[in-house]
């Protein structure tokens, strides 16, 4: 694919070759992301960051990516004080921002907002999360983490654990992993299990899928344990939340039978899903995962603005 001018709205718009190309370029960006090497790749370019709802990692890593590549950014971290609060449509905000910048990064609480933005923008739009919808850059950094920390994606056995029903990152990740040769196990309490249409579509795309209720069932086999946050508000009362939260908690006991080179991932922020005692073990890949957001977003910014091919 020629990425120049392409909107990145959903990871489903990308084929396997596109994903691998982005990850290859992201690998090369690591020394720049770490500040070990300087770059002026994006010199003279402006990124508009339109964050209609708060975000820490995503916004900061986009801004870090742009600054490390010698570019600049403008925008807002929350809509208070902007014309959005005065009732301006998203379409008009996008038309305005596209006149002021070379690339737009948008996070918005409504599903489909990034797709809408792409229709009204003259410059490429990157979706940084639209409500409960898509979050393609998170998926790409997740894939980068699996590839770098386990050596490859093909052939990997991946257990997705926690809130698989409402978690936006796990749906996108499932579709992306299904483009590779992977075994996916969805580990969740029945009320938070992966929606059947996602499991079905992943199967049709070629992934081998299975469901499980407890981590013990899969921990010995898994190469990757991808943990998500279980939100309290999904449960009728505190007691039923605690019961589930304890079953899916990752600590050293839970990892006792894990493969030696297995990794634990988490999109962060974590609450109590992963005990801090795991942080200093070789299993912990979640902080590296957060770092990989920077090189991944560098690669994408370079590609869609046409400074990289």
């Amino acid at each position, binding site marked *: 694919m020629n990425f120049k001018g392409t909107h990145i709205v959903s990871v489903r718009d990308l084929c396997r070759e596109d994903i691998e190309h982005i990850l290859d370029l992201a690998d090369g960006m690591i020394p720049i992301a770490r500040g070990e090497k300087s770059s002026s790749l994006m010199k003279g370019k402006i990124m508009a960051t339109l964050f209609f709802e708060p975000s820490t990692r995503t916004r900061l890593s986009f801004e870090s990516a742009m600054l490390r590549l010698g570019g600049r950014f403008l925008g807002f971290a929350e809509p208070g004080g902007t014309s959005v609060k005065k009732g301006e*449509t998203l379409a008009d905000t996008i038309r305005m921002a596209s006149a002021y910048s070379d690339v737009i990064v948008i996070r918005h609480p409504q599903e489909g907002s990034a797709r809408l933005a792409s229709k009204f923008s003259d410059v490429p739009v990157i979706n940084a999360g639209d409500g409960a919808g898509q979050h393609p850059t998170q998926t790409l950094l997740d894939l980068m983490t699996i590839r770098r920390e386990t050596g490859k994606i093909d052939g990997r056995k991946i257990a997705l654990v926690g809130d698989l029903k409402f978690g936006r990152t796990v749906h996108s990740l499932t579709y992306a992993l299904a483009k590779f040769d992977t075994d996916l196990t969805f580990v969740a309490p029945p009320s938070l299990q992966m929606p059947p249409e996602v499991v079905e579509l992943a199967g049709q795309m070629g992934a081998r899928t299975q469901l499980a209720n407890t981590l013990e069932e899969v921990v010995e086999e898994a190469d990757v344990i991808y943990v998500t946050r279980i939100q309290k508000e999904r449960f009728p009362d505190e007691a039923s939340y605690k019961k589930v939260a304890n079953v899916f908690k990752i600590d050293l006991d839970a990892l006792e039978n894990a493969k030696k080179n297995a990794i634990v991932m988490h999109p962060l922020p974590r609450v109590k899903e992963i005990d801090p005692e795991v942080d200093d073990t070789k299993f912990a890949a979640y902080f590296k995962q957060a770092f990989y957001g920077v090189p991944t977003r560098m690669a994408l910014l370079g590609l869609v603005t046409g400074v990289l091919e």
Partner: protein
Amino acid sequence: MKELKITPIKNGTVIDHIEPGMALKVARLLGVPDPDAHSTVSIAMYVKSGKMKYKDIIKIEDRELKKREVNIISLISPNASIAIIKDEEVIKKSRVTLPKVITGIARCSNPNCITNKDEPTETEFTVLGGREVKLRCMYCDRLVDDIIESII
């Protein structure tokens, strides 16, 4: 003498092979009854049919359907056929075909979809065929819960 369940029309449109029991819904979506129209509309339900066992039929005098209306029929009755009648002769007859994409016809059933906000855009859905027609919102990716209820 053979009694006709619905008499032939002189000019207008015959929608045949509608899924049995769906004729009133199709009629409603076509704006029938229209208080300002005075042409005859005939509706027959559960008519015996060799191909379908049972079918519904609608005949509307003095009206040709617009493309948007044909698309609506295809969504809720994908086997329907449409004949245009002029001077009691069938001048064109064709089966409806499912469009790949529909624009501006349906509303997304996800209340948090951006197309349900006050934005200057039309809804767009990918039409998924199969045993049952499904619509997937091209903005938020969700499947429409009830196609008939979603039609604008």
